[in-house]
């Protein structure tokens, strides 16, 4: 049998992510798109922990980690230093949704307002997975987490997901996009476009977490696809604050997505919660209307 080719991955084997990790796949795809002329800034989070337990590292590009909240500030400093030295490396920030939506907000806002040249990638697994599944600003409505547990008095997280792309578009970011690990070619294209656009760009990547959401590792891609097909996640591009491209779908009822995950199990067991499912369907309907994702089938 022929020998397999040796790896040329920039995010290498041997990292300690769970089998079927969406974020690890996102890191692989992002580094493939970004190439070797890249400096990665990683905030604290699952990705930082599983990829670099000292003295090991899965990264083969220059990589720096400082704190949870200041990835954008570190990137700003690197950008200023590179400009002063006349160098042309691209800066890519990899941060989780906790570091982006909650803790890093001040530094992100500052860096986007100052207009530094970097690409901010948020791998969105919709909670603080590394510390044991606590809710974040990205956790969807009614998801059960350890700090928003579902039970007799609650259906889980009471607040809808924060609209982070809109917040950063409002900062005047030239390129803002959302992508999903289920569509790797689209993801890589968006990352390349963000890197080649001068100024602060933002790509939010939907990265299902088998441990935190409660599903088998092999379902990662199927679940990411279902999120798009039900309208609970929308893949779009915003250039200079205007939505320029949207992935259209023939929508399925949200139930099909909710049923696949343990974090939504309380909506079906012990009894079906029709009112709550209708509320989630309403979120999907609003998304569909806002971005115009519905494919209108021709009547025969």
């Amino acid at each position: 049998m022929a020998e397999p080719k040796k790896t040329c991955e920039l995010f290498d084997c041997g990292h300690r992510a769970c089998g079927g990790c969406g974020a690890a796949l996102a890191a692989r795809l992002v580094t493939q798109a970004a190439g070797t002329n890249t400096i990665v800034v990683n905030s604290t989070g699952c990705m930082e922990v599983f990829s670099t337990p000292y003295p090991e590292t899965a990264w083969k590009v220059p990589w720096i980690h400082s704190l949870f909240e200041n990835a954008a500030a570190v990137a700003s400093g690197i950008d200023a230093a590179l400009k002063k030295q006349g160098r042309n490396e691209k800066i890519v920030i990899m941060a989780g949704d906790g570091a982006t939506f909650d803790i890093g907000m001040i530094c992100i806002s500052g860096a986007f307002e100052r207009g530094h040249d970097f690409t901010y990638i948020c791998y969105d697994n919709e909670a603080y997975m590394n510390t044991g599944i606590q809710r974040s600003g990205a956790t969807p409505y009614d998801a059960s987490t350890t700090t928003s547990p579902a039970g007799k008095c609650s259906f889980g997280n009471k607040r809808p997901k924060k609209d982070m792309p809109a917040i950063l578009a409002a900062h005047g970011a030239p390129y803002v996009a959302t992508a999903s690990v289920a569509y790797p070619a689209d993801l890589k294209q968006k990352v390349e476009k963000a890197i080649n656009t001068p100024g602060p760009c933002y790509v939010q990547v939907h990265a299902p977490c088998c441990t935190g959401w409660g599903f088998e590792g092999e379902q990662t891609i199927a679940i990411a696809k279902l999120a798009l097909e039900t309208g609970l996640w929308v893949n779009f591009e915003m250039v200079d604050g205007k939505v320029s491209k949207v992935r259209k779908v023939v929508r399925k009822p949200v139930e099909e997505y909710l049923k696949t995950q343990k974090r939504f199990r309380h909506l079906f067991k012990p009894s079906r919660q029709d009112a709550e499912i209708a509320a989630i369907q309403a979120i999907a309907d609003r998304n569909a209307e806002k971005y115009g994702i519905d494919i209108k089938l021709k009547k025969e």
Partner: protein
Amino acid sequence: MALAVGCRARPGKSRDNKTGSWRVFKPAFDNEKCSKCGMCQTLCPEGCVHENTDGFFEPDYTYCKGCGICAEECPKEAITMKQEEK
């Protein structure tokens, strides 16, 4: 263990960590059914699936965690997961 300056580590040193030992189910690749689309390579979170000189794909069992994404997403159903006896 002494820390290196800046806690730095050699690029890709995580290969010391042989994650293949985590595996419960092992993917078996059937080249008869394979259409060489490369979906298994693209979607592997480990990046451990490689193309061989015949254009077929093979996982590196030293690192494959046996998550089963390749088997689930293979359009030709050429990959099957089998429980591994150790």
